[in-house]
Structures are given as structure tokens and as C-alpha cells.
């Protein structure tokens, strides 16, 4: 490890607290394992959501947990996101640590008032007499032919809200360690699971056969409890040519594009958007002098705009070229043309060429 990585961004797989068996897990299994560990360790942890009980969730993230922990700790809910998040606020006021699942991030909007005006503000408005220690899990992102209502990436709605933390993993190992940190956190956290990479890392070449997580180090996951701290980015690759800031599915896409193009890029997987690992970002941009930001969400007022502003404010005199932003287009996520929307290898490759040509 070089000096910078020890100071700030951490490499993966890292030395966690976990001991015992390490197993191959895809991201779904890793999330299930995190929930299993937390239900076992803390009687106040409770899971609720549509189809998560007997059936184990439409993506199977809660499979087997109701059978193991009982119906009063893992249960199905009415189809009401407002209700799911609202009752979770009340459960938190009682002293529980609820982990509601919103079946798709696209469905979270009916619950926004309870999230934004209630969960996120409760500690502040009660001067910490009441808190909302909930983790809202929700699959997000496209690339599964989900159409516009099963594909969105609404993270910037939540990063804009004071009092919410937003966490997005990109590997099974991180998904488990981050999720455990989220559940133990005493503030409300939005935990977005990039569903395109639930079963395998996606390199952006949709016309090639899908890969599974088999054989990837990042899918070697301890069965026991371990945590990855919130607010810490992960160094995916070290490099000198440019810094690429990404999270979720896009981490894998940019990695494959830079590898294919032979670019010596330094890729940071942000993992937590709020609070952000600004030290890691600054250190990397100051080293490389070039910065590209990649996300799948729509462009205008996306989280990339915030990242771009911060890099400009803090690293301006180290920049050798304008910051590049690669994002989804400002359209709904179309069904048949989803790969035209998706910021894939062509869009990323073009931005890399532009960033290096300046």
C-alpha cells in the first residue's frame, strides 16, 4: 500500500474484523448474510417490506430469514411505501432498528415525505430525543430491461437531503460490510443495491454473455460479522493518468473500459456519497491532475454535478483539463433503448479521449 491509500481510500479486500469461514457469495447472498448476522446479533433489528417474508423478496435478498427469525421480525407489508417508511420511523422511536426494503428504488417516491420530512429530520427537530436508526434497502439502476419504473437511479434526491446518508456498494464483499455499518448507524441511511451487478460484475458490454461473481476476489465474503466504515472510498485501481470517480455498477464499467483502452486510471469507488470521502478524492485528483465523474443517473442536478463542483473548488490549481462528466441522459429510462440511455463504453471512451487530449 502506498502512503495515500493508508491515509485515505482503502483497498479491497481489506482486513476486516471477520474471522471464520469465507465463502463465495454473489451480492444477493452477501446482503442476505449481513441481514442474517444482524438479526442474530441484535434483537431490535427488524425487516419489513413487500414480499420479503415467506417468499424472501423478489430478488431473494431476505430468503430464509423469516423461517429462521420468525414472523414478527421479518414480515411482509401492505403495498404502501409511505406506510413502510412511516411505521419504520415509529419503530425507531420505540427503540427498534428497522431495515425496510423498498422493492425498487423507483417505488420510493410515495415514501419521500416520511423519509425527508420525518426520518431525516427527527434527530434534529427533537434535539436528539428521538432518532430514526433505519436502513432503507432498495435495488436501483438499470440494465435489466426494467423500463422506466424499474431502472432509475434517484440517489441525488437523497444526497440533497440534510440528515440522510446514502450508501451504494459495488461488490459483494463491500455490500455486506457496508450494510452492517448502515444497520448499526444511528442515523437513517439509504442503501441502494445496484441490481445489474447482483449476480455478477457488469463490464458495460451488454451484447456479451453476462458474467457471474465466480472467481472474483470481491465475492469472497466472510460468513461472520464484519464492517466497512461509512464515508470511506475504495481504491479500485491506482494510476497516474486520471482520476475516475464512480459508484455502483459504473465502477465495473469504467474499470473494463480503462483496461480495454490501456489507460493508467485511478478509479475510486466512492461507496458512500454522504458523507463523502473528500480526502481520497482530493489526494487522487491532486496526483493525476485530471478528473472524470461517471454515474448512471440522469445528468442535470445529478450527484456528478456536486462532485464536479467540489473538485473544482478544492483542486482547481491541480487540474490540467476540464472535469468530464459521463452520465445517463436526461430522459426517462427507456425500455427498448435502455442501452442507448446507459453511459456505456462508447460514452466513457469518448470522455477519456477528450480528458487526455486537453
Amino acid at each position, binding site marked *: 500500500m502506498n502512503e495515500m491509500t493508508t491515509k485515505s481510500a482503502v483497498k479491497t479486500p481489506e482486513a476486516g474484523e471477520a474471522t471464520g469461514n469465507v465463502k463465495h457469495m454473489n451480492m444477493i447472498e452477501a446482503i442476505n448474510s449481513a441481514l442474517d448476522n444482524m438479526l442474530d446479533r441484535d434483537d431490535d433489528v427488524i425487516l419489513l417490506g413487500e414480499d420479503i417474508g415467506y417468499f424472501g423478496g423478489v430478488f431473494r435478498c431476505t430468503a430464509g430469514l423469516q423461517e429462521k427469525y420468525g414472523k414478527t421480525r421479518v414480515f411482509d407489508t401492505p403495498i404502501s411505501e409511505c406506510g413502510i417508511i412511516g411505521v419504520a*420511523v*415509529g419503530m425507531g*422511536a*420505540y427503540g427498534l432498528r428497522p431495515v425496510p426494503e423498498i422493492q425498487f428504488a423507483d417505488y420510493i417516491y410515495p415514501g419521500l415525505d416520511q423519509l425527508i420530512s420525518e426520518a431525516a429530520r427527527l*434527530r434534529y*427537530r427533537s434535539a436528539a430525543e428521538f432518532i430514526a436508526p433505519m436502513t432503507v434497502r432498495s435495488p436501483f439502476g438499470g440494465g435489466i430491461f426494467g423500463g422506466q419504473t424499474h431502472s432509475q437511479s434517484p440517489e441525488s434526491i437523497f444526497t440533497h437531503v440534510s440528515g440522510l446518508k446514502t450508501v451504494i456498494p459495488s461488490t459483494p464483499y463491500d455490500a455486506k460490510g457496508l450494510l452492517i455499518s448502515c444497520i448499526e*448507524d444511528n442515523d437513517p441511511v439509504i442503501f441502494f443495491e445496484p441490481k445489474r451487478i447482483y449476480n455478477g460484475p457488469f463490464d458495460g458490454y451488454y451484447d456479451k454473455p453476462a458474467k457471474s461473481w465466480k472467481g472474483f476476489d470481491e465475492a469472497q465474503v466472510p460468513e461472520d460479522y464484519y464492517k466497512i466504515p461509512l*464515508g470511506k472510498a475504495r481504491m479500485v485501481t491506482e494510476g497516474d493518468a486520471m482520476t475516475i470517480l464512480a459508484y455502483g455498477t459504473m465502477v465495473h464499467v469504467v474499470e473494463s473500459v480503462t483496461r480495454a483502452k490501456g489507460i493508467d486510471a485511478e478509479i475510486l469507488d466512492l461507496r458512500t456519497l454522504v458523507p463523502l470521502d473528500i480526502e481520497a478524492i482530493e489526494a487522487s485528483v491532486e496526483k493525476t491532475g485530471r478528473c472524470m465523474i461517471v454515474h448512471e443517473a440522469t445528468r442535470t442536478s445529478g450527484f456528478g454535478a456536486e462532485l464536479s463542483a467540489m473538485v473544482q473548488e478544492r483542486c482547481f490549481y491541480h487540474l490540467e483539463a476540464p472535469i468530464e462528466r459521463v452520465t445517463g441522459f436526461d430522459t426517462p429510462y427507456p425500455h427498448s433503448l435502455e442501452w442507448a440511455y446507459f453511459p456505456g463504453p462508447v460514452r466513457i471512451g469518448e470522455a477519456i479521449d477528450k480528458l487526455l487530449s486537453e
Partner: protein
Amino acid sequence: MDETGSNRPKLALHVPEPRYRPGDTVDFSDLRISKPGEQPRPDEAAEASETFPLCNDLIRVLGDDNQAHGPWDPRLDAETLRSMLREMALVRAFDNRMYRAQRQGKTSFYMKCTGEEATSVCATHALAGDDMIFPSYRQQGCLIARGYELTEMINQIYSNKADKLKGRQLPIMYCSKRLSFFSISGNLATQLPQATGFAMASASKGDSRIAATWVGEGSTAEGDFHSALTFAAVYNAPVIFNVINNQWAISSFSGFAGAERATFAARAIGYGMAGLRVDGNDPLAVFAAERWAADRARANAGPTLIEHFTYRAEGHSTSDDPSAYRSAEERGEWPLGDPVMRLKNHLIALGEWTEDQQEAMDKELDEMVRKAMKEAEKNGILGHGLHHPFHTMFEDVFEELPWHLEEQADQAIRERQIKFPEDPAE
């Protein structure tokens, strides 16, 4: 036939209109007011359907003769009746003083609950002291019934340096975990699913605490109301929903929440939940209904929706002028009277109270409020410098201050030092 050649009848949009506007003569004689004592009282553990007739009735106990009647008479001892009377009168004295304080510029905002005191004070008396209250914004009576210190309330209203909410909340948005009184939100009806969640949590832990929540009839139109009742019915949650039907939501009469079609209590029927419709200006009926629902919840017999039929005697808030949209006669013509007067007259009829005692008590309470105001004013009034330090503005956004809020706190404190260089405090 119209121009398109269709002979279908023309559709017409119905937009509700209240019966009386400013200047109109008010006649409430056609309101269906049931006779006190005539409403049946089902067993607390009865099937919800046994309560359904009561959703279209009006549970009343106190008659025009100032006596208690019928099976809903809670048979309270005189001491309890006197403390309910005292607390309702205290709420009224407090409201009057605080309203004037706002007019004097000591704070930005105030909301009275005049005429609705029974729906919070007497309902709270029917609960256990540690049952969790999820209030709306007009439930100061719940706090006063639980003995909250007036000075604490006024500190909050003044957002001063002793405000334990650190000046962050709009006046009257109290919070007291010690008194099991949840933090008030300005967003309407959000407390309803939260109360259900609290009740579900309590039930899942095998605890004995129940939850009770309050909402105005206007806010029952929010989706949260539907979500909360659905969850409560689905999980048989030990929660009481108090709908305070005070006829007006700012300038919108109850018709805009659906009152032209059904009572608010009747919402319970669709959920298969127990429902009661009660004279909200009858302190004994309010107590009895709330106690019935609390006993039912505690016996795992499920949630109850109670409509408290009452009248908002004053404006919505200090920012409202009701003379601009409703007849000034309504308050005087309201057929259910005033809850404070009704309980007072009942106690007098019982030989347990006198007009002189009432007068002396009113004086004493006003003096008590005045003293509390003076005490609170030592800690400052809104906008006069005695606020919390700037850094507290950034605390409690999260449990720990992240770097970006530390940076912004430094900025806020620097701005203050630039504006007030002579004052190094902060």
C-alpha cells in the same frame, strides 16, 4: 343533442361549499345531535362491526341538565373531574397569554385550541402515563395533562436559549420523550403511520404500551392516513386514531375532506376497525371513548378510530383571519357548547364545585401562566439575541458532525464574528 351529436347528459363538477360565509345568519338546527346516554356501549373486546352503528351516531354523556347519562358515563370521581377541568382551563389561559405574546412580537407564531380542549386533555387522562402520544399541532392539552412545565413550553415558543429543542422548531412544535410525547411535525398526518409503527414495535416486543395519535379532519385526506389505518388493521396494532373534526382546515370546511359523503368515524368501517363518533365538547364522552379504545388496544383487540366532533372556535393560527371565510356567528351557534363550561356546570350540579371556585381558579391559572412567561423571558424572546450558539445549528443533523458540516459551521461562526466584531461569544 350537443354539437358532437351525442345525447349523453352533460357532466357537472361538484365543488363543495360551506353553508355559511361571512355575514351569513347561522342555523345549526339540522345537525343530527344524538340524545346523551342513548348510545349503546359494546364490550371493549367486541367485534369491530358492533361499533359500526356508532360511527354514524354521536356518543354523548353530559346532558343539558348537566348530569351524566347512559352506559358511556365513565363514572369518574370528583377529584379526577376537577383536575380535568383545571387542566382545560389552564390550556385556555395559556393559549390566551401566548396569543397575546405573539401579537406583542415575542414570537413568530402561535396556535390556540379553544373549544377543543377536551379532545386532548380528557383523552390523555384516559391513557396510561407511558402510552406514546403522537400529536398533531393542536395537542398542547396532552402535554399540560401530563404535567409539562409551562416555562419549558414557553421557552420553546420563544425559541430562546433555554429552549431544549435549541430554537430549531416552529413555536408549539413541542417534544418530550420523558412524557412520551413525540416530536411534532409541521407536515400533516405523518404522525399516523409512525404511531402505528410504534404500536407494532411495542406489540412485537410483548410490551404493554399502546400508541395514540391525533389528526385534524382535513388531514385525513393525506395518503398517510390511509397507510396508517391499513397497517393498523393488517397487524391489529394497539393504536388509537383521534380525528379531531373541528369543521375547518384553515379556510377549507370539512367538506373538502369528504364530510359531505360520510362521517370521519365511518372511515373505520372500510378497514374493519372499531370506530366511535363522539361529542368532542363533552369531556366525559371523550374520556369514555378514549378509555374504551385504550382498553381494547391493551387487550390485543385492535385499533380504534375516534372522530371527535367539535368546533375550532378561533383561527387556525396567529397567521389566520377566520372572519375572511366563515360566519362569525358559527362559534356562538355551535350546538355542542363549550367543554370547559360543560364540565364546570357538571361539577357544580354534582355539588363538587362553585362559580366562586371557578373564578378563583381562573385567576390563579392566569397568574401561573404570567409567572411562567416572566421566567421564560429571562431566557430571551425570539429574535433578541438570546439564542443557542451558532454551532448548535449544525449539531444533530447526524449523530456525528461530518466534515462538510464542520466546514459550514466554521463559515457561520466566521460570518457572525464579521457582523459582530465586538462580541466574541460563540
